[in-house]
């Protein structure tokens, strides 16, 4: 049974925010003038209390945070900006003190809240490796023994004796990460450091982190890179407004976070309950929702399961002929496909007045994982002239969850708009002559 590496109980951090637009630090001058002002005010207008409004406010960056992490676990921490993720890491790495609660940590801790902390621009690459290593808590002998590895990892052999201020930003970041990557702590705290560097270097960094975890180190990884969290961390914490709101498998947490972040109030459905305000006139849109292959409403879509988009609408006048169209876009606003109901039995039929539910089914293994949205349109074809009753852009936004049916490599995104399971076939013949 693995040991407990971190136990956090009831952790809280309070900041006092000042509502005056001045510097974060106090100037003695201000303290003195404020005192003088207060004194003057008391003499000048003793009844004037309203002016002495409280200009500070308490703000809990973290509140009642509790969790446990076992040795060797790799845990992702996700959440919106300002949720308290970085504050949590700062407390765990002892940069700042908590206001309430306790943390028990075991083993050597190294935190990597920023790449290149303590690099001095005037010093050479060689000098900075030693300096940065010492700041991160390595001993001189450790740095010496890892020196060649660090240099090789950073690919900056040629510039070792050049001041780092002359480095390109890429070289700078590579060198800085290389030093940090060669720390060998039992507990590694990482804050969004992979946002820097080019793709191949990011890949290298992720690889190094994966290696750290396979060597049995405990890693806490704050990131907005959902892909990386999902692939590196089996477990994830979701932090919102200073509290841990979810602690589960990273797949579950990431999907929940993404869905929530998309602002879908009732997941998998958009409804227009009032007929007056619903889109359209002769034909009114009532709802757009996700359904399973047998038509039951669902809230999530997985890459390996078929699903449908149901459009519910009401015709107020009978005798209209129209077609229903679905335009699917992905998160990058690239149109994935267009589909019209022209194989439906109602197509080309004059419709009676009433409520219709039209399902458009998607096969499994078609869409790539990620955010998608549909634009829904109903267009009259008879009687002429043709006319669009309504076109609702982004009528429904949904997320396609990853399932590893296609063998995914942890570093590479499967690029592209769709991700079908294609059939592959290889032929082989035992010959070496052409």
């Amino acid at each position: 049974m693995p040991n407990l590496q971190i136990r956090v109980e009831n952790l809280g951090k309070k900041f006092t925010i000042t509502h005056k637009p001045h510097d974060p630090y106090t100037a003695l001058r201000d303290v003195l003038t404020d005192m003088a002002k207060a004194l003057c005010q008391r003499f000048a207008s003793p009844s004037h209390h309203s002016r002495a409004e409280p200009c500070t406010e308490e703000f809990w960056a973290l509140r009642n945070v509790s969790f446990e992490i076992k040795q060797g676990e790799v845990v992702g921490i996700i959440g919106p900006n300002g949720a308290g993720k970085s504050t949590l890491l700062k407390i765990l790495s002892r940069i700042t003190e908590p206001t309430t609660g306790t943390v028990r940590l075991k083993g050597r801790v190294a935190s990597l809240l920023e790449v290149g902390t303590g690099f001095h621009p005037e010093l050479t690459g060689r000098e900075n490796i030693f300096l940065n290593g010492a700041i991160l808590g390595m001993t001189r002998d450790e740095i010496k023994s890892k020196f060649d590895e660090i240099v090789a990892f950073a690919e900056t052999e040629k510039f070792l004796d050049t001041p780092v201020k002359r480095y390109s930003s890429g070289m700078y970041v590579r060198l800085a990460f290389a030093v940090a990557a060669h720390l060998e702590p039992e507990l590694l705290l990482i804050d969004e450091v992979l946002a820097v560097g080019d793709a191949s270097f990011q890949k290298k960094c992720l690889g190094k982190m994966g290696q750290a975890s396979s060597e049995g180190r405990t890693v806490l990884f704050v990131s907005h890179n959902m892909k990386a969290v999902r692939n590196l961390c089996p477990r994830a914490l979701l932090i919102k407004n200073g509290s841990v709101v979810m602690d589960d498998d990273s797949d579950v947490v990431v999907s929940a976070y993404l869905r929530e972040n998309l602002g879908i109030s009732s997941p998998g459905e958009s409804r227009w309950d009032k007929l007056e305000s619903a889109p359209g006139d002769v034909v009114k849109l009532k709802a757009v929702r996700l359904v399973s292959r047998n038509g039951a409403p669902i809230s999530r879509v997985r890459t390996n399961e078929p699903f449908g988009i149901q459009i519910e609408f009401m015709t107020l006048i009978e005798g209209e002929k129209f077609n229903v169209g679905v335009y699917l876009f992905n998160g990058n606003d690239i149109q994935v496909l267009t589909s019209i109901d022209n194989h439906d039995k109602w197509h080309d039929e004059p419709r009676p007045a009433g409520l219709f539910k039209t399902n458009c089914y998607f096969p499994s293994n078609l869409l790539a994982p990620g955010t998608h949205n549909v634009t829904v349109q109903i267009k009259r074809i008879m009687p002429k002239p043709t006319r669009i009753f309504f076109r609702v852009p982004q009528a429904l936004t949904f997320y396609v969850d990853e399932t590893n049916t296609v063998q995914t490599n942890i570093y590479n995104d499967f690029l592209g708009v769709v991700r079908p399971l294609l059939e592959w076939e290889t032929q082989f013949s035992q010959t070496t002559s052409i």
Partner: protein
Amino acid sequence: MEQREIIIEAGRTERQYWKDLWAYRELFYFLAWRDILVQYKQTVIGVLWAVLRPLLTMVVFTVLFGKLAKFPSDGAPYPILVFSGLLPWQFFAGAFSGASNSLVGNRNLISKVYFPRLAIPTSSVIVSFVDFLISGVILVGLMAWYDFWPTWRVVVLPLLVLVAFAAAMGAGLWISALNVKYRDFRYVIPFLVQFGLYVSPVGFSTKIVPERWQALYALNPMVGVIDGFRWAILGKDAAFYLPGLAISLSLVALVLASGILYFRKTERTFADVI
């Protein structure tokens, strides 16, 4: 391997503090090494500056106080009198102004990495100490030039260096911690240093201060330190006022102790206010 457990709690950094200080002992060296390296990077004459500054100051003071004002020289060549005062003073002044900005100047470190914060002002004091050692070599050269040799008293010198170090540390800790919270201090420091140069017996001997003011004068802890230096280097003719030294020493002890306490008390909030 038995892993040590760290407990993080409000107001409970004490426990690991001194252990950490030991664990991070190399950082003191590295930070000082960085500051020394950086100080003379991209300069033409480099370390020569460490020689030139005290030397030129000494020349000016010798001309001003020795030749023009004709102050007593305590039985030693005036340049040696000046230099033996200049040595501790420059150490103190350099450490003081270096330490004052050290925390603010290393803001990014403080807000991004944990290590005992004491390492930062301490390493600025160490940097000044290295300059002090270089100046010490000049003094030896100067004494050789004037063929002026110290007596047995010179063995007390390391002790006095320790006192100077304590004074510099105490003042440096105070000012660096205060400067984190109240940035006013960065304007006060150059003034304080300049002021201190005139109220300390650097360019002249304490002898020219009337007897009845000696005790008051000794309230400046650098008076005791400088007098001690002269006593050790110049020999029997040097001004020496024992009660004054006692006052200075106790003041140094007070400043150092209170400096450490204040620094320890405020350092936990450094990352939040810096």
